[in-house]
C-alpha cells in the first residue's frame, strides 16, 4: 500500500491545522465521519472507520498550481464533499458576472476573467458539475482540465482508548478546471474550446471513420432500448455495456 501509516502521538498543531481548512466554499468536511475515500489501485484494505477509529482532521498538502503562468489573483473555488452547489455557484457566478464587485476588488466591469474549480476525492464529481453549470450559464468559456494525485493527510483518533492517533497519508485523485473568458492555449492537453457541450462527440466521431453513423443531437435515440424494464434489471451498467 502506498499509504504511509504512521502510528504516533499527534502533535498539538493538528487542531490549528484543522481550523484553517475553512476555505471559500468549503463547508465543514472535517468533523464528518467519512469512510476513507477510494484509493488508487489495490482497493483500500484500510478501513479505519470500522476499527474503532474516527477521523479528526483532514488536510490537503500544498501542491503547485496546475496552471503555470496563471495570474495570482485568480479566483479559486475549492469544492469540498459537503459544499453546496448553490453556495459555490452563487459566489462564483456573482464574481464572474461582476455584479457590483462582491469584494470591491474587481469592479472594472464584466467581472473576473477566469475562475478555477478544484476538488479532490469525492468532491471531483461536484467540481465538474460546477464547471459545467458555469459553462452553460456564462457561455463562451475556454476550459482547461488537469488531473493529478493529491496527497491528503488524515489524522485518525481511537474512539476507545483516546490515546492512540494515526496519521495517514493518502493519495486521492484531484481535478482542477480553469474556465477563462480569454482564449487559452489550444495545444495544451486538456483544453476544450467554448461550446463543446454537445459537439464533443461529433468531433471525436469525425476523427474515427470506422464508427457508426453520427448520432443526432435532437431527441435521444432510445429505440435500441424499447423495454425499460430490461434496462433496469439487466446488465445496463454505466454508459454502455462493456461489449
Amino acid at each position, binding site marked *: 500500500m502506498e499509504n504511509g501509516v504512521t502510528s504516533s502521538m499527534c502533535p498539538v498543531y493538528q487542531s490549528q491545522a484543522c481550523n484553517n481548512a475553512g476555505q471559500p466554499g468549503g463547508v465543514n468536511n472535517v468533523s464528518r465521519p467519512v469512510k476513507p475515500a*477510494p484509493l*488508487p*489501485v*489495490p*482497493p483500500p484494505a484500510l478501513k479505519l472507520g470500522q476499527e474503532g477509529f474516527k477521523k479528526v482532521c483532514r488536510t490537503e498538502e500544498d501542491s503547485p498550481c496546475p496552471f503555470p503562468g496563471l495570474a495570482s489573483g485568480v479566483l479559486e473555488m475549492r469544492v469540498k464533499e459537503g459544499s453546496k*452547489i448553490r453556495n459555490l455557484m452563487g459566489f462564483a457566478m456573482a464574481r464572474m458576472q461582476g455584479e457590483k464587485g462582491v469584494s470591491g476588488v474587481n469592479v472594472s466591469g464584466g467581472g473576473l476573467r477566469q475562475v478555477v474549480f478544484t476538488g479532490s*476525492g*469525492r468532491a*471531483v*464529481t*461536484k467540481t*465538474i*458539475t460546477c*464547471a*459545467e*453549470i458555469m459553462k*452553460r450559464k456564462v457561455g463562451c468559456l475556454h*476550459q482547461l*482540465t*488537469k*488531473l*493529478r*494525485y493529491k496527497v491528503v493527510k488524515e489524522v485518525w483518533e481511537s474512539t476507545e482508548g483516546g490515546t492512540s492517533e494515526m496519521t495517514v497519508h493518502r493519495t486521492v*485523485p484531484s*481535478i482542477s*478546471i480553469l474556465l477563462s473568458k480569454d482564449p487559452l492555449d489550444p495545444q495544451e*492537453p*486538456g*483544453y*476544450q474550446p467554448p461550446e*463543446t*457541450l*454537445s459537439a*464533443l*462527440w461529433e468531433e*471525436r*466521431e469525425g476523427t*474515427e471513420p*470506422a*464508427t*457508426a453513423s453520427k*448520432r443526432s443531437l435532437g431527441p*435521444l*435515440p*432510445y429505440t*435500441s*432500448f424499447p423495454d*425499460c*424494464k430490461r*434496462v*433496469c*434489471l439487466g446488465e*445496463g*451498467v*454505466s*454508459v*454502455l455495456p*462493456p461489449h
Partner: protein
Amino acid sequence: MTEPRNPSMSSIPQTGPAHTDSSSPAVEMDPVEYTLRKRLPRKLPKRRNDVYVNMKTDFRAQLARCQKLLEGGGHREICVHGLGLAINRAINIALQLQASSQGALQLAANTSTVELVDDLEPEDPDEAGEPMTRTRNNSAIHIKVFYPDAQ
C-alpha cells in the same frame, strides 16, 4: 429527495441523484404512485480504444483492460469515459496508467454534461396517474490517455 426509489435501481449508482446538476423544476407527485425507472444513457461512440468505466466491474479488471489496450493492443491513445460516480474511477484509472508508464503517457481530460431520462410509471395502471418522463443532467469526463509523440 422526493423520488421514490425503486430497489432494483440502487445498483446503478452512477446515475444516482447525488450530484446531478439538474435544472428541471421539481415535479409534484405522490411518492406511492410512481416507480422511477432510469433509462440507460444515450449511446455514445464505441471504438476499440474507448473504455467506458462503470462501478460494477472490478477496478483492477478495468485497469488491466486499459493497460492491455495500450501495451498489447498497440493503441497509441485510448479514451477513458466516466459518468457520475464513475468519474472518480475513470480519473483513478487514467492516473494509474500514467503513473505506471513512468511519465510516458499524458492525459487530456474533457468534461461534459450528459442528459439522462427517467421514466415515472404509475404503480397502479387503474389510477389516474399518467406515465411521465423527466430529464436531468449528470456530469461526465472523457480522458484521453496517450503517448505524446502520437499524431
